Protein backbone atom coordinates (compact mmCIF):
# COMPACT_ATOMS: atom_id res chain seq x y z
CA UNK A 1 0.00 0.00 0.00
CA UNK A 2 1.28 3.43 -0.89
CA UNK A 3 1.65 5.12 2.46
CA UNK A 4 0.03 8.47 3.06
CA UNK A 5 3.25 9.85 4.44
CA UNK A 6 4.88 9.15 1.11
CA UNK A 7 2.11 10.41 -1.13
CA UNK A 8 1.53 13.53 0.94
CA UNK A 9 4.95 14.76 -0.10
CA UNK A 10 4.23 14.35 -3.81
CA UNK A 11 3.29 17.29 -6.08
CA UNK A 12 -0.48 17.68 -6.54
CA UNK A 13 -0.28 16.96 -10.27
CA UNK A 14 0.65 13.36 -9.59
CA UNK A 15 -2.38 12.72 -7.39
CA UNK A 16 -5.82 11.48 -8.22
CA UNK A 17 -7.82 14.46 -6.98
CA UNK A 18 -10.87 12.46 -5.95
CA UNK A 19 -8.79 9.91 -4.09
CA UNK A 20 -6.23 11.79 -2.04
CA UNK A 21 -3.28 9.67 -1.10
CA UNK A 22 -3.40 7.66 -4.36
CA UNK A 23 -1.22 8.13 -7.38
CA UNK A 24 -3.18 9.31 -10.44
CA UNK A 25 -1.69 6.77 -12.81
CA UNK A 26 -2.88 3.88 -10.66
CA UNK A 27 -6.17 2.67 -12.13
CA UNK A 28 -7.17 0.81 -8.99
CA UNK A 29 -6.53 0.71 -5.29
CA UNK A 30 -3.80 -1.49 -3.90
CA UNK A 31 -5.20 -4.99 -3.88
CA UNK A 32 -6.46 -6.08 -0.52
CA UNK A 33 -7.87 -9.43 0.40
CA UNK A 34 -9.92 -9.80 3.57
CA UNK A 35 -10.07 -13.20 5.18
CA UNK A 36 -11.81 -14.26 8.37
CA UNK A 37 -10.69 -17.42 10.11
CA UNK A 38 -13.09 -18.95 12.63
CA UNK A 39 -14.21 -15.42 13.48
CA UNK A 40 -16.40 -15.44 16.57
CA UNK A 41 -17.75 -13.02 19.08
CA UNK A 42 -19.65 -13.60 22.27
CA UNK A 43 -20.91 -10.72 24.41
CA UNK A 44 -22.77 -10.93 27.69
CA UNK A 45 -22.98 -14.73 27.26
CA UNK A 46 -24.74 -14.28 23.90
CA UNK A 47 -23.11 -15.75 20.81
CA UNK A 48 -23.22 -12.99 18.20
CA UNK A 49 -20.98 -14.58 15.60
CA UNK A 50 -19.87 -18.17 15.58
CA UNK A 51 -16.91 -19.56 13.68
CA UNK A 52 -17.25 -17.66 10.41
CA UNK A 53 -14.48 -18.32 7.89
CA UNK A 54 -14.62 -16.54 4.57
CA UNK A 55 -12.14 -15.11 2.07
CA UNK A 56 -13.03 -11.95 0.18
CA UNK A 57 -10.86 -11.55 -2.89
CA UNK A 58 -9.30 -8.22 -3.90
CA UNK A 59 -11.86 -6.10 -5.74
CA UNK A 60 -14.73 -8.44 -4.92
CA UNK A 61 -18.11 -7.24 -3.64
CA UNK A 62 -19.56 -9.53 -0.97
CA UNK A 63 -23.08 -9.01 0.33
CA UNK A 64 -23.97 -10.21 3.80
CA UNK A 65 -27.65 -11.00 4.24
CA UNK A 66 -29.71 -12.65 6.92
CA UNK A 67 -32.53 -11.98 9.36
CA UNK A 68 -32.29 -9.39 12.15
CA UNK A 69 -29.91 -10.51 14.88
CA UNK A 70 -28.10 -12.91 12.54
CA UNK A 71 -24.75 -11.20 13.21
CA UNK A 72 -24.44 -9.14 10.01
CA UNK A 73 -23.43 -5.88 11.66
CA UNK A 74 -21.29 -7.73 14.19
CA UNK A 75 -19.38 -9.29 11.29
CA UNK A 76 -18.78 -5.87 9.73
CA UNK A 77 -17.76 -4.25 13.04
CA UNK A 78 -15.27 -7.04 13.60
CA UNK A 79 -13.75 -6.44 10.16
CA UNK A 80 -13.20 -2.78 11.15
CA UNK A 81 -12.14 -3.90 14.64
CA UNK A 82 -14.72 -1.65 16.26
CA UNK A 83 -15.40 -4.74 18.36
CA UNK A 84 -12.90 -7.35 19.44
CA UNK A 85 -13.23 -10.95 18.26
CA UNK A 86 -13.52 -13.41 21.13
CA UNK A 87 -12.30 -16.13 18.78
CA UNK A 88 -10.53 -16.39 15.45
CA UNK A 89 -9.12 -13.47 13.55
CA UNK A 90 -9.15 -11.35 10.41
CA UNK A 91 -6.31 -11.36 7.90
CA UNK A 92 -5.50 -8.46 5.58
CA UNK A 93 -3.45 -9.79 2.68
CA UNK A 94 -2.56 -12.68 4.96
CA UNK A 95 -1.50 -10.46 7.88
CA UNK A 96 -3.34 -10.84 11.20
CA UNK A 97 -5.03 -7.50 11.76
CA UNK A 98 -4.09 -7.47 15.42
CA UNK A 99 -0.54 -6.72 14.28
CA UNK A 100 -1.75 -3.53 12.56
CA UNK A 101 -2.36 -0.46 14.75
CA UNK A 102 -6.18 -0.09 14.95
CA UNK A 103 -6.16 3.49 13.66
CA UNK A 104 -4.09 2.48 10.62
CA UNK A 105 -6.31 -0.53 10.03
CA UNK A 106 -9.43 1.66 10.02
CA UNK A 107 -8.03 4.03 7.43
CA UNK A 108 -7.20 1.05 5.18
CA UNK A 109 -10.56 -0.61 5.74
CA UNK A 110 -13.07 2.26 5.53
CA UNK A 111 -16.58 1.95 6.89
CA UNK A 112 -19.82 3.67 5.93
CA UNK A 113 -22.42 3.29 8.63
CA UNK A 114 -26.17 2.91 8.45
CA UNK A 115 -26.61 6.48 9.70
CA UNK A 116 -24.24 9.16 8.36
CA UNK A 117 -23.26 10.50 11.84
CA UNK A 118 -21.78 13.69 10.46
CA UNK A 119 -19.83 15.92 12.82
CA UNK A 120 -21.18 19.42 13.56
CA UNK A 121 -19.83 21.98 11.07
CA UNK A 122 -19.45 22.21 7.33
CA UNK A 123 -19.45 19.49 4.72
CA UNK A 124 -15.81 20.30 3.89
CA UNK A 125 -14.73 19.88 7.53
CA UNK A 126 -16.40 16.48 7.60
CA UNK A 127 -14.68 15.34 4.41
CA UNK A 128 -11.29 16.55 5.69
CA UNK A 129 -11.73 14.87 9.09
CA UNK A 130 -10.01 11.54 8.39
CA UNK A 131 -6.79 12.93 6.88
CA UNK A 132 -6.65 15.59 9.63
CA UNK A 133 -6.42 12.79 12.19
CA UNK A 134 -3.07 11.84 10.69
CA UNK A 135 -1.89 15.45 10.64
CA UNK A 136 -2.54 15.78 6.87
CA UNK A 137 -4.45 18.70 5.35
CA UNK A 138 -6.77 17.76 2.53
CA UNK A 139 -6.43 20.48 -0.14
CA UNK A 140 -9.60 22.33 -1.13
CA UNK A 141 -9.47 20.96 -4.68
CA UNK A 142 -9.40 17.38 -3.39
CA UNK A 143 -12.39 18.07 -1.16
CA UNK A 144 -14.19 19.57 -4.17
CA UNK A 145 -13.26 16.56 -6.33
CA UNK A 146 -14.55 14.11 -3.71
CA UNK A 147 -17.81 16.02 -3.37
CA UNK A 148 -18.12 16.13 -7.16
CA UNK A 149 -17.64 12.38 -7.22
CA UNK A 150 -20.47 11.77 -4.76
CA UNK A 151 -22.76 14.15 -6.65
CA UNK A 152 -22.56 17.11 -4.31
CA UNK A 153 -20.71 19.83 -6.23
CA UNK A 154 -20.34 23.20 -4.46
CA UNK A 155 -21.44 21.70 -1.14
CA UNK A 156 -18.18 22.48 0.64
CA UNK A 157 -19.49 25.31 2.80
CA UNK A 158 -22.92 23.88 3.49
CA UNK A 159 -23.72 23.27 7.15
CA UNK A 160 -24.50 19.61 7.71
CA UNK A 161 -27.84 20.51 9.30
CA UNK A 162 -29.10 21.74 5.92
CA UNK A 163 -28.58 18.36 4.20
CA UNK A 164 -31.22 15.81 3.32
CA UNK A 165 -30.78 12.18 4.41
CA UNK A 166 -29.46 11.15 1.01
CA UNK A 167 -27.06 14.10 0.86
CA UNK A 168 -25.78 13.37 4.35
CA UNK A 169 -25.08 9.76 3.38
CA UNK A 170 -23.20 10.96 0.28
CA UNK A 171 -21.07 13.22 2.51
CA UNK A 172 -20.43 10.27 4.77
CA UNK A 173 -19.25 8.25 1.75
CA UNK A 174 -16.98 11.11 0.63
CA UNK A 175 -15.62 11.36 4.18
CA UNK A 176 -14.73 7.67 4.17
CA UNK A 177 -13.18 7.89 0.67
CA UNK A 178 -11.03 10.84 1.80
CA UNK A 179 -8.96 8.29 3.74
CA UNK A 180 -8.29 6.48 0.45
CA UNK A 181 -9.19 3.06 1.89
CA UNK A 182 -8.22 -0.19 0.18
CA UNK A 183 -11.45 -1.86 1.27
CA UNK A 184 -14.93 -0.58 1.96
CA UNK A 185 -17.39 -1.84 4.55
CA UNK A 186 -20.98 -0.72 4.03
CA UNK A 187 -23.41 -1.27 6.90
CA UNK A 188 -26.88 -1.00 5.37
CA UNK A 189 -25.94 2.36 3.84
CA UNK A 190 -29.33 2.88 2.21
CA UNK A 191 -31.69 1.50 4.86
CA UNK A 192 -32.59 4.96 6.19
CA UNK A 193 -33.22 6.45 2.72
CA UNK A 194 -36.20 6.75 0.40
CA UNK A 195 -36.41 4.66 -2.77
CA UNK A 196 -35.11 7.41 -5.09
CA UNK A 197 -32.08 8.06 -2.87
CA UNK A 198 -31.41 4.32 -2.50
CA UNK A 199 -30.84 3.82 -6.22
CA UNK A 200 -28.73 6.98 -6.42
CA UNK A 201 -26.47 5.83 -3.58
CA UNK A 202 -26.28 2.31 -5.01
CA UNK A 203 -25.20 3.64 -8.41
CA UNK A 204 -22.67 5.91 -6.76
CA UNK A 205 -21.17 3.11 -4.65
CA UNK A 206 -21.06 0.68 -7.55
CA UNK A 207 -19.34 3.28 -9.72
CA UNK A 208 -16.71 4.08 -7.11
CA UNK A 209 -16.10 0.47 -6.12
CA UNK A 210 -15.72 -0.66 -9.73
CA UNK A 211 -13.48 2.19 -10.81
CA UNK A 212 -11.22 1.66 -7.79
CA UNK A 213 -11.61 -2.13 -7.70
CA UNK A 214 -12.12 -1.83 -3.96
CA UNK A 215 -12.70 -4.96 -1.93
CA UNK A 216 -16.19 -4.36 -0.55
CA UNK A 217 -18.45 -5.94 2.02
CA UNK A 218 -22.02 -4.69 2.14
CA UNK A 219 -24.49 -5.67 4.84
CA UNK A 220 -28.05 -5.46 3.62
CA UNK A 221 -31.45 -6.79 4.59
CA UNK A 222 -32.56 -6.11 1.01
CA UNK A 223 -31.99 -9.17 -1.18
CA UNK A 224 -32.80 -7.23 -4.34
CA UNK A 225 -30.01 -4.83 -3.43
CA UNK A 226 -27.61 -7.71 -2.91
CA UNK A 227 -28.63 -9.06 -6.32
CA UNK A 228 -27.95 -5.68 -7.95
CA UNK A 229 -24.58 -5.09 -6.30
CA UNK A 230 -22.77 -8.16 -5.08
CA UNK A 231 -20.53 -10.69 -6.83
CA UNK A 232 -21.02 -13.17 -4.00
CA UNK A 233 -23.47 -13.32 -1.14
CA UNK A 234 -23.05 -14.76 2.30
CA UNK A 235 -26.05 -15.73 4.42
CA UNK A 236 -25.78 -15.53 8.20
CA UNK A 237 -28.26 -17.20 10.51
CA UNK A 238 -28.03 -17.05 14.30
CA UNK A 239 -24.42 -15.95 13.98
CA UNK A 240 -23.39 -18.87 11.80
CA UNK A 241 -22.47 -18.99 8.16
CA UNK A 242 -25.47 -20.64 6.49
CA UNK A 243 -24.49 -20.24 2.84
CA UNK A 244 -22.02 -18.48 0.60
CA UNK A 245 -21.59 -18.40 -3.17
CA UNK A 246 -22.41 -16.43 -6.31
CA UNK A 247 -25.23 -14.06 -5.50
CA UNK A 248 -27.71 -15.45 -8.03
CA UNK A 249 -27.24 -19.01 -6.75
CA UNK A 250 -27.37 -18.18 -3.06
CA UNK A 251 -30.43 -15.97 -3.35
CA UNK A 252 -32.12 -18.55 -5.53
CA UNK A 253 -31.47 -21.35 -3.06
CA UNK A 254 -32.48 -19.47 0.09
Amino acid at each position, binding site marked *: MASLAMTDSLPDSTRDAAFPGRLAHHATTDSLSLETRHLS*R*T*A*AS*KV*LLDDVSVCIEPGEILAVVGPS*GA*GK*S*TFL*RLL*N*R*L*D*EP*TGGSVLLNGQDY*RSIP*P*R*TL*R*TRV*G*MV*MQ*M*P*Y*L*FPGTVAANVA*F*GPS*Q*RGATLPAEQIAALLDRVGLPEYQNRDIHTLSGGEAQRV*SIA*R*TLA*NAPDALLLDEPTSALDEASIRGIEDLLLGIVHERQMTTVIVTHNRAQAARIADRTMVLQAGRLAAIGPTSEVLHDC
Partner: protein
Amino acid sequence: MIADLLNHLGGNVPVGLAQAAGAIVLCLAVIVLCRRFAVRVEREALVSIARGLVQMVAVGIVLALLLHGSLLVGVLILLGMTIAAAATAARRARNMQGALLVCFWSIAAGSGVVIAAMIAMGTLQTNIAMLVPVGSMIIANAMNACAQAAERFRADVTAHVGQIEAGLALGADPAVTVAPYVQSAVYASLLPRLDMLKSLGLVWIPGVMAGMMVSGASPVYAGIYQFILVVMILTASGIAGLVATVLLRTHAFSSAAQLTLRGNAPAGLAAVQQT
Protein backbone atom coordinates in the same frame (compact mmCIF):
# COMPACT_ATOMS: atom_id res chain seq x y z
CA MET B 1 -10.37 10.53 76.04
CA ILE B 2 -13.53 8.88 77.47
CA ALA B 3 -13.81 11.67 80.01
CA ASP B 4 -13.69 14.14 77.10
CA LEU B 5 -16.52 12.25 75.39
CA LEU B 6 -18.70 12.14 78.52
CA ASN B 7 -18.05 15.82 78.96
CA HIS B 8 -19.24 16.49 75.41
CA LEU B 9 -22.31 14.25 75.73
CA GLY B 10 -23.63 16.37 78.58
CA GLY B 11 -24.57 20.00 78.16
CA ASN B 12 -26.51 20.82 75.04
CA VAL B 13 -26.55 17.38 73.34
CA PRO B 14 -30.08 16.48 74.59
CA VAL B 15 -31.26 19.92 73.49
CA GLY B 16 -29.66 19.34 70.08
CA LEU B 17 -31.43 16.00 69.68
CA ALA B 18 -34.75 17.62 70.52
CA GLN B 19 -34.09 20.34 67.98
CA ALA B 20 -33.15 17.65 65.41
CA ALA B 21 -36.50 15.94 66.09
CA GLY B 22 -38.25 19.24 65.34
CA ALA B 23 -36.36 19.58 62.07
CA ILE B 24 -37.22 16.00 61.10
CA VAL B 25 -40.93 16.58 61.80
CA LEU B 26 -40.93 19.64 59.52
CA CYS B 27 -39.10 17.66 56.82
CA LEU B 28 -41.60 14.78 57.13
CA ALA B 29 -44.45 17.26 56.70
CA VAL B 30 -42.93 18.32 53.35
CA ILE B 31 -42.57 14.68 52.32
CA VAL B 32 -46.26 14.10 53.09
CA LEU B 33 -47.06 17.20 51.03
CA CYS B 34 -44.96 15.80 48.15
CA ARG B 35 -47.02 12.61 48.31
CA ARG B 36 -50.15 14.63 47.53
CA PHE B 37 -48.47 15.54 44.23
CA ALA B 38 -47.56 11.90 43.53
CA VAL B 39 -43.91 12.54 44.36
CA ARG B 40 -43.05 9.45 46.37
CA VAL B 41 -39.78 9.91 48.18
CA GLU B 42 -40.86 8.64 51.61
CA ARG B 43 -38.56 5.65 51.74
CA GLU B 44 -35.53 7.43 50.31
CA ALA B 45 -36.10 10.46 52.53
CA LEU B 46 -36.54 8.40 55.71
CA VAL B 47 -33.41 6.38 54.97
CA SER B 48 -31.47 9.55 54.21
CA ILE B 49 -32.68 11.27 57.38
CA ALA B 50 -31.84 8.24 59.52
CA ARG B 51 -28.45 7.82 57.87
CA GLY B 52 -27.67 11.52 58.18
CA LEU B 53 -28.54 11.62 61.89
CA VAL B 54 -26.62 8.47 62.75
CA GLN B 55 -23.62 9.53 60.65
CA MET B 56 -23.45 13.02 62.15
CA VAL B 57 -23.81 11.77 65.74
CA ALA B 58 -21.12 9.17 65.01
CA VAL B 59 -18.83 11.82 63.54
CA GLY B 60 -19.47 14.00 66.58
CA ILE B 61 -18.54 11.12 68.88
CA VAL B 62 -15.40 10.35 66.86
CA LEU B 63 -14.37 14.00 66.88
CA ALA B 64 -15.03 14.25 70.59
CA LEU B 65 -12.83 11.19 71.15
CA LEU B 66 -10.08 12.39 68.82
CA LEU B 67 -10.26 16.13 69.38
CA HIS B 68 -6.74 16.20 70.74
CA GLY B 69 -5.36 13.63 68.30
CA SER B 70 -2.32 14.17 66.10
CA LEU B 71 -2.18 15.33 62.45
CA LEU B 72 -1.88 11.67 61.41
CA VAL B 73 -5.26 10.92 63.01
CA GLY B 74 -6.77 13.86 61.13
CA VAL B 75 -5.31 12.64 57.85
CA LEU B 76 -6.66 9.14 58.46
CA ILE B 77 -10.14 10.54 59.14
CA LEU B 78 -10.00 12.56 55.89
CA LEU B 79 -8.78 9.46 54.04
CA GLY B 80 -11.76 7.51 55.35
CA MET B 81 -14.06 10.31 54.21
CA THR B 82 -12.43 10.27 50.77
CA ILE B 83 -13.06 6.53 50.43
CA ALA B 84 -16.70 6.98 51.45
CA ALA B 85 -17.00 9.90 49.01
CA ALA B 86 -15.50 7.79 46.21
CA ALA B 87 -17.99 4.98 46.88
CA THR B 88 -20.86 7.47 46.74
CA ALA B 89 -19.66 9.18 43.55
CA ALA B 90 -18.93 5.83 41.87
CA ARG B 91 -22.63 4.96 42.02
CA ARG B 92 -23.27 7.76 39.50
CA ALA B 93 -20.64 6.30 37.18
CA ARG B 94 -22.38 2.94 36.83
CA ASN B 95 -21.45 0.82 33.82
CA MET B 96 -18.00 2.36 33.82
CA GLN B 97 -14.99 0.20 34.43
CA GLY B 98 -12.87 1.08 37.48
CA ALA B 99 -15.30 3.81 38.58
CA LEU B 100 -14.47 3.44 42.28
CA LEU B 101 -10.75 3.90 41.78
CA VAL B 102 -11.28 6.75 39.32
CA CYS B 103 -13.52 8.54 41.83
CA PHE B 104 -11.09 7.91 44.67
CA TRP B 105 -8.11 9.32 42.79
CA SER B 106 -9.98 12.33 41.48
CA ILE B 107 -11.47 13.26 44.87
CA ALA B 108 -8.13 12.60 46.58
CA ALA B 109 -6.28 14.73 44.02
CA GLY B 110 -8.74 17.63 44.25
CA SER B 111 -9.11 17.74 48.00
CA GLY B 112 -5.50 16.71 48.74
CA VAL B 113 -3.99 19.53 46.69
CA VAL B 114 -6.33 22.11 48.16
CA ILE B 115 -6.03 21.01 51.80
CA ALA B 116 -2.23 20.94 51.49
CA ALA B 117 -2.26 24.41 49.90
CA MET B 118 -4.49 25.79 52.65
CA ILE B 119 -2.23 24.37 55.35
CA ALA B 120 0.80 25.86 53.54
CA MET B 121 -0.92 29.27 53.29
CA GLY B 122 -1.89 29.15 56.97
CA THR B 123 -5.62 29.27 56.23
CA LEU B 124 -6.15 25.83 57.68
CA GLN B 125 -4.75 24.67 60.98
CA THR B 126 -3.70 21.09 61.47
CA ASN B 127 -5.73 20.50 64.63
CA ILE B 128 -8.54 18.01 64.17
CA ALA B 129 -11.25 20.43 65.27
CA MET B 130 -10.53 22.57 62.21
CA LEU B 131 -8.88 20.18 59.76
CA VAL B 132 -11.68 17.63 59.69
CA PRO B 133 -14.74 19.91 59.30
CA VAL B 134 -13.09 22.16 56.68
CA GLY B 135 -11.48 19.17 54.96
CA SER B 136 -14.81 17.38 54.84
CA MET B 137 -16.41 20.40 53.16
CA ILE B 138 -13.74 20.31 50.47
CA ILE B 139 -14.00 16.52 50.04
CA ALA B 140 -17.80 16.73 49.79
CA ASN B 141 -17.60 19.33 47.04
CA ALA B 142 -14.87 17.38 45.21
CA MET B 143 -17.17 14.33 45.47
CA ASN B 144 -20.08 16.24 43.94
CA ALA B 145 -17.86 17.57 41.14
CA CYS B 146 -16.54 14.08 40.45
CA ALA B 147 -20.04 12.57 40.43
CA GLN B 148 -21.41 15.32 38.19
CA ALA B 149 -18.51 14.99 35.75
CA ALA B 150 -18.83 11.19 35.67
CA GLU B 151 -22.59 11.27 35.20
CA ARG B 152 -22.45 13.87 32.42
CA PHE B 153 -19.58 12.11 30.64
CA ARG B 154 -21.35 8.75 30.78
CA ALA B 155 -24.63 10.26 29.60
CA ASP B 156 -23.03 12.17 26.72
CA VAL B 157 -20.90 9.26 25.54
CA THR B 158 -23.72 6.74 25.64
CA ALA B 159 -25.98 9.22 23.80
CA HIS B 160 -23.40 9.70 21.03
CA VAL B 161 -22.10 6.18 20.44
CA GLY B 162 -22.72 6.43 16.68
CA GLN B 163 -20.87 9.71 16.34
CA ILE B 164 -17.93 8.46 18.40
CA GLU B 165 -17.66 5.23 16.43
CA ALA B 166 -17.94 7.15 13.16
CA GLY B 167 -14.83 9.05 14.27
CA LEU B 168 -13.06 5.86 15.33
CA ALA B 169 -13.92 4.21 12.00
CA LEU B 170 -12.23 7.13 10.25
CA GLY B 171 -9.01 6.48 12.18
CA ALA B 172 -9.45 9.17 14.83
CA ASP B 173 -7.72 9.04 18.18
CA PRO B 174 -10.26 8.00 20.85
CA ALA B 175 -9.51 11.18 22.81
CA VAL B 176 -10.53 13.27 19.78
CA THR B 177 -13.84 11.44 19.39
CA VAL B 178 -14.94 12.25 22.96
CA ALA B 179 -13.34 15.71 23.28
CA PRO B 180 -16.70 17.57 23.20
CA TYR B 181 -18.04 15.32 25.96
CA VAL B 182 -14.95 15.79 28.13
CA GLN B 183 -15.43 19.53 27.79
CA SER B 184 -19.12 19.44 28.72
CA ALA B 185 -18.49 17.06 31.65
CA VAL B 186 -15.82 19.27 33.21
CA TYR B 187 -17.98 22.35 32.67
CA ALA B 188 -20.99 20.64 34.23
CA SER B 189 -18.92 19.74 37.28
CA LEU B 190 -17.74 23.33 37.74
CA LEU B 191 -21.01 25.14 37.09
CA PRO B 192 -22.62 24.71 40.56
CA ARG B 193 -19.41 25.88 42.25
CA LEU B 194 -19.13 28.87 39.90
CA ASP B 195 -22.72 29.80 40.72
CA MET B 196 -21.89 29.39 44.40
CA LEU B 197 -19.00 31.84 44.05
CA LYS B 198 -21.11 34.32 42.10
CA SER B 199 -23.90 34.34 44.68
CA LEU B 200 -21.54 34.44 47.67
CA GLY B 201 -22.68 37.16 50.08
CA LEU B 202 -25.57 38.18 47.79
CA VAL B 203 -27.82 35.17 48.03
CA TRP B 204 -26.28 33.24 50.87
CA ILE B 205 -23.87 33.65 53.76
CA PRO B 206 -22.19 30.29 54.22
CA GLY B 207 -22.14 28.39 57.47
CA VAL B 208 -18.46 28.83 58.20
CA MET B 209 -18.76 32.61 58.09
CA ALA B 210 -21.85 32.52 60.27
CA GLY B 211 -20.07 30.22 62.73
CA MET B 212 -17.00 32.44 62.87
CA MET B 213 -19.14 35.50 63.57
CA VAL B 214 -21.05 33.68 66.30
CA SER B 215 -17.65 32.77 67.81
CA GLY B 216 -16.71 36.45 67.88
CA ALA B 217 -14.46 36.76 64.80
CA SER B 218 -14.38 39.98 62.81
CA PRO B 219 -17.18 39.86 60.19
CA VAL B 220 -14.78 41.26 57.58
CA TYR B 221 -12.18 38.56 58.23
CA ALA B 222 -14.94 35.93 58.39
CA GLY B 223 -16.12 37.11 54.96
CA ILE B 224 -12.62 36.98 53.49
CA TYR B 225 -12.04 33.54 54.99
CA GLN B 226 -15.31 32.29 53.55
CA PHE B 227 -14.29 33.66 50.13
CA ILE B 228 -10.98 31.79 50.38
CA LEU B 229 -12.84 28.63 51.31
CA VAL B 230 -15.27 28.87 48.38
CA VAL B 231 -12.40 29.58 45.94
CA MET B 232 -10.59 26.54 47.32
CA ILE B 233 -13.76 24.48 46.94
CA LEU B 234 -13.95 25.61 43.30
CA THR B 235 -10.29 24.66 42.85
CA ALA B 236 -10.79 21.22 44.40
CA SER B 237 -13.89 20.70 42.25
CA GLY B 238 -12.01 21.71 39.11
CA ILE B 239 -9.20 19.27 39.82
CA ALA B 240 -11.61 16.46 40.78
CA GLY B 241 -13.81 17.02 37.71
CA LEU B 242 -10.82 17.15 35.35
CA VAL B 243 -9.06 14.12 36.81
CA ALA B 244 -12.28 12.10 36.90
CA THR B 245 -13.16 12.89 33.29
CA VAL B 246 -9.69 12.25 31.93
CA LEU B 247 -9.45 8.92 33.80
CA LEU B 248 -12.95 7.89 32.73
CA ARG B 249 -12.07 8.78 29.14
CA THR B 250 -9.20 6.30 29.35
CA HIS B 251 -11.54 3.66 30.76
CA ALA B 252 -14.14 4.31 28.04
CA PHE B 253 -11.93 2.69 25.38
CA SER B 254 -10.09 -0.59 25.09
CA SER B 255 -6.42 -0.75 24.22
CA ALA B 256 -7.51 -1.39 20.61
CA ALA B 257 -9.35 1.95 20.48
CA GLN B 258 -12.78 0.34 20.78
CA LEU B 259 -15.55 2.13 22.65
CA THR B 260 -16.37 -0.01 25.67
CA LEU B 261 -18.65 2.46 27.42
CA ARG B 262 -21.87 1.83 25.57
CA GLY B 263 -24.65 2.21 28.14
CA ASN B 264 -27.78 0.38 27.05
CA ALA B 265 -26.54 -0.40 23.55
CA PRO B 266 -28.21 -3.33 21.82
CA ALA B 267 -26.92 -6.71 22.92
CA GLY B 268 -25.27 -7.16 19.55
CA LEU B 269 -23.10 -4.16 20.23
CA ALA B 270 -22.41 -4.75 23.90
CA ALA B 271 -18.88 -4.23 25.08
CA VAL B 272 -16.68 -7.14 25.97
CA GLN B 273 -13.44 -6.88 27.80
CA GLN B 274 -10.54 -7.67 25.57
CA THR B 275 -8.99 -11.00 26.22
